C-alpha cells in the first residue's frame, strides 16, 4: 500500500513538474505530506480500533448466544484475543499490518482472510463506480458546455430543469422508480446477476444521474464566469475563432476547480454506493462496512477504515497536484495570495 502510494506519487510529479520545480523541493514537499498523512492514519485507525472494543461482548456470538455457558463464552473471547489489554491488542494489529497482513475475519466469515473478502467485492464496486463516473463526466461536462453556450435559451432551460429535478427528488425515490419501470418497459432483469451482462447497465446509469447534474451545473457556472472575463474579450478582439477560444482557454480554466475533486471521485468508487448495491443485490463493498460493524467483525472494520482513510488522504493530495498542474498560479508550498 505504502509502496504503491510513493511510486504513484513519483510518476505523476515527474511528468508534470520536471520543468517547474527542482527535485529537492518536490521531494521535500512530498515527504512532509507523507509524514502528516501517516500521523492522521495512525490516529484514525487507533480510535476506530478502540471504539470497536467498546461494543457489547454478546455481539461476537451471533444467534447461538442463549445456549452458550460462561466457560464457553470466556474461551471464545480469549481465543479471539479480546481479553488481552487494549494496548496489547493494538500492538498485535500494527505488527501484523507492517507485515502486510490485514487480519482474518471473526464473525462475518470466520477464518477467512480479510484481504480475500474485500478483494472479491471490490471489483463490483469499482466497476459500477467507474462506469457511473465516466458516464457522468462525459454527459455532465457536455451538458454543461451546451448549457453555457446556449445560455438562457432552450437547452439551458432544459438542463436546468433536469438539475432541479435531480436535486429536489431524493435519490432513493428515483432509483426505485427506475428499477421498477425501466425494467418493465425494456424487459431488463430487476436484480444484478453477474452472468447476465444486461444487468450491468441500469445500476451504472442510475448512479450516474446525480453526479451528471452536479458536473453540468458547475461546468456551466465556471464557463459562464470565464466567458465574462477580460482576457476572453481580448482574444475575440484579436480574432481568434470561437472554437479555439473555447478549447484552449475557457475549457481549460473552467476545469481547474473541478480537477481538484476528480481523484477523490475516482477513489471513492471503491467505497461503493450502499443504496444501489442493496437495491440491485450487487455483492460490492457498499454494504460491507455497515454489515461488519453490526456484526462486530473488528478486523474487517479496521481494514475498511484503513483503506477508506488512505483513499481520502491520497485523493486530497492528488487533487491538489492535479489542480496545480492545470493552473500555474497555484503554488502548493508557499502561503500567499494570487500574484
Amino acid at each position, binding site marked *: 500500500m505504502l509502496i504503491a502510494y510513493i511510486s504513484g506519487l513519483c510518476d505523476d510529479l515527474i511528468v508534470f513538474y520536471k520543468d517547474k520545480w527542482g527535485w529537492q523541493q518536490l521531494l521535500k514537499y512530498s515527504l512532509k505530506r507523507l509524514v502528516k498523512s501517516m500521523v492522521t492514519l495512525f490516529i484514525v485507525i487507533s480510535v476506530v480500533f478502540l471504539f470497536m472494543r467498546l461494543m*457489547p461482548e*454478546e*455481539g461476537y*456470538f*451471533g*444467534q*447461538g*448466544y*442463549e*445456549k*452458550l*455457558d*460462561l*466457560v*464457553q463464552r470466556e*474461551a*471464545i473471547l480469549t*481465543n*479471539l484475543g479480546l481479553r488481552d489489554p487494549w494496548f496489547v491488542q493494538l500492538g498485535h494489529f500494527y505488527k501484523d499490518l507492517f507485515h502486510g497482513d490485514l487480519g*482474518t475475519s471473526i*464473525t*462475518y*466469515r*470466520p*477464518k*477467512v482472510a480479510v484481504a480475500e473478502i474485500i478483494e*472479491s*467485492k471490490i471489483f463490483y464496486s469499482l466497476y459500477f463506480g467507474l462506469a457511473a463516473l465516466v458516464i457522468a463526466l462525459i454527459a455532465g461536462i457536455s451538458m454543461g458546455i451546451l448549457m453555457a453556450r446556449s445560455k438562457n435559451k432552450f437547452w439551458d432551460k432544459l438542463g436546468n430543469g433536469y438539475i432541479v429535478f435531480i436535486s429536489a427528488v431524493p435519490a432513493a425515490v428515483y432509483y426505485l422508480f427506475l428499477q421498477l419501470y425501466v425494467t418493465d418497459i425494456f424487459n431488463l432483469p*430487476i*436484480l444484478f446477476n*453477474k452472468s447476465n451482462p444486461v444487468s450491468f447497465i441500469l445500476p451504472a446509469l442510475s448512479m450516474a444521474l446525480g453526479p451528471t447534474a452536479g458536473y453540468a451545473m458547475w461546468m456551466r457556472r465556471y464557463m459562464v464566469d470565464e466567458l465574462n472575463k477580460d482576457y476572453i474579450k481580448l482574444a475575440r478582439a484579436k480574432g481568434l475563432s470561437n472554437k479555439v477560444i473555447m478549447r484552449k482557454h475557457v475549457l481549460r480554466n473552467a476545469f481547474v476547480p473541478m480537477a481538484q475533486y476528480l481523484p477523490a471521485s475516482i477513489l471513492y468508487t471503491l467505497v461503493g454506493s450502499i443504496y444501489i448495491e*442493496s*437495491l440491485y*443485490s450487487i*455483492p460490492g463493498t457498499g*454494504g460491507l462496512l455497515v454489515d461488519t460493524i*453490526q456484526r462486530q467483525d473488528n478486523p474487517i472494520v479496521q481494514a475498511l477504515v484503513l483503506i477508506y482513510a488512505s483513499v481520502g488522504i491520497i485523493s486530497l493530495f492528488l487533487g491538489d497536484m492535479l489542480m496545480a498542474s492545470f493552473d500555474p498560479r497555484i503554488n502548493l508550498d508557499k502561503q500567499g495570495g494570487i500574484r
Partner: protein
Amino acid sequence: MKKVIALMLTVALSMSVLAGCKDSAPKDKKTDVKQEYSTVYSEELTTLNYLVTASENEFAVAANLVDCLVEHDKYGVVKPSLATDWSVSSDGLVWTFNLRKGVKWVDAAGKEYAEVQAQDFVDGMNYVLDKKNNSETANLAYSVLKDAEKFYKGEVTDFTQVGVKAKSPYVLEYTLKAPTPYFLSMLTYVCFMPVNGKFLAETGDKFGTDNKTLLYNGAYLLQTYEPQNSRVLVANDKYWDKTNVFIKKLTYTYNKEAATLSPELFTRGEITDATIPTASIDEWMNDPTKKETVRPIATTFYTFFYAFNFNPKFDVKYQPENWKAAVNNLNFRKSLFNALDKTAAMTTAEPYEPARRLSNTITPKNFIDIKGVDYTALGSLAKTSSTSSFDATKAKDFKTKAMEELKGKVTFPVKVVMPYNTSSSDWTNRAQVIEQQMETLLGKDFIDIIILPYPPTGFLNATRRAGNYSFMECNWGPDYADPQTYTDPFTSESNYSWISLATDYKEANGKGKYENMVNAAKAEILDTSKRYKLFADAEQFLIDQAFVIPYSLGGGGFIASKLDPFTSPYSPFGVSSSKFKGQKIMDKAMNTATYKKGFDAWQKARSEALKVAANKK
C-alpha cells in the same frame, strides 16, 4: 434497395417463426415434474464448518451435506443412518453403535476421499471439545459425555479419557456422565457429526471456509458456493441411501430483498417456494387464483412466552424499585396473567386462525409423551394446558386484591416497561394492541404500560439480557427430547427473568421453590415416567404462580410451495427437519384444504408409527 431489405426481413421473420415451431417437442401424456428446487435467500452463511456454528441457517445446510448416526423419518421415528444398530449398557452409561460399512467421504467434485469410520466421530468430538476451535455447540456435547467438560476446561489433557472411543473401525462407543435416556435425540445435532481427521489436519484453519475445504457423506454435495451470490447443491452420486433422494439439485440465489420479492418470483414460476409476508397475506387470500397456491405452515417447537422481570434495571424515571415491589406480589402477577388477551395479540401475526398457534404451557403439545400420554396432559399440567389464561373477571378480582395488599408499599399505577423489536412489524403492532387491551381491561389506575421501541442490532443485549424490561415477549427452542430442555431459561444461571430473585419462594436450602422442584426432577434419571411427572409439576408451579405467561408456538404463517410437506423428514429438534432427502416437488402448489386433510392423516399415521416404535423397544 428497399425491396431487398423488405425481402430479407420477411425471410428472417419467417425463419424465426419456423424455428419456434420446430422447437416445441410433442408433449408427453404424463410429464414428470422436474425435481429441481430453487429459492432466494437474504441471510448469507458465515461458515460451512458445522462443528463450530450455532446458527440455524448453517445447520440447515450441514444437514444435507453430512449425515449423523441416526436420522428421523417423516413421522419423527428414529431410524438408522450412519449407524445400523445400537445398544445401551444395563447401567445406562455406555452406548455402542455399529456403523454402516462402505459409506464414503467425497469432495466437492464428487471424488471419493476415504471411508467413513468410527474414528471420524472421535475426531469430530476432539475438534469440538478443543477450546481453541471456538465451537459454539461444545456445551451440548460436554453436558453429557464423561470427562468432556474437564477436557474443555483443560483439567484433563488426554483426549483418550473422554467418553468417546472407536472400539474398531466400525464400532463407536460413547460413555456418559450419567444415564441419559434422551441421548439418542441429541445425536442429530451438529456437534455429534463426524469429520475426516486427515482432511481436517490438512485444511487446518481453512476447514469449512468454502465448499472445497469440506468433505461430504450426506445426500448432497455443495457444488457451487459464492457468498452473496448463490450456492448450488447437487445429489451425491455416492450416497449410501441415494434411492431416497428425489430432488437432484438445490439452487439458492442471494437476494437482499428476498422476503418482499419472493412471492412475486414464485408467481412468475422462478422459484419453488416463497413464504408470504404477514402484510401480504390478505392480498393473497382475496385473490382466487393466488389463494389456491397457499397453505398454512406448521407450527414449530419454539415456545414464546411473556416473562415478568424480577431484576429490573431500567431507567429510574420508570421506577424500577416500584415494579420490583409489585412483581413480587402474587395477586399482582395473577391479575396481569389473566388480563392478557392472547388471541387478540396473536391476530397481529396470524390473522387467519390465530388459535392454532396459541399455547397454554411452556412445553408445546406433541413434543414428548409417556406411553402415549402427552407430556402436557400429565398431572396438574393437564388442566392448565387446556384452559386459556385469559379471564377478564379473574383479572379484575386479582387487581382488587393486589391493590389492597400493596396499598402504601407501591405507587399506583405501576409503570410496566415493555420493549419490542422495531424490525418486526408484527411485533410493533402487537405491542400496541397489548398495551391498549390490558390498560383498558385493568384500568390506567392500576398499570401504565410503556412500550419502548428498540432497533434490531443488539436488541436482546439492550433489553432482556440487561434486565431492561418489566414485561416482555421471550422465546426458547428445544435441544433434545426431554422436558429439561424447556427449563433452561428459568434456571438461576440464565439471563431471562431472574426468577430465582423472587422474594417469597426461598426454601430451607436457600434456593427458590421452582429451582428445587426442577433439580429434583433432573435428579430422577432412572424412572422416565416419574421424571416427566416431576417436570410437569414444576412447570405447573411456574405457570400457576404466574412467573411467566405462556403465549404461543413458533412457525405459522402461510407459504406458497411446490414441495410436498408430508415427504419431509420430521423432528422437533436436531437437524433432521432440514433435510431434503425424501422430499418431492409437486407439479403445483398445495392449497389449504388439501394441506389440512393431509395434516390430519399425517398426525394419525404419526401416532401409530410412534406407538409401534415404542413397543419395539
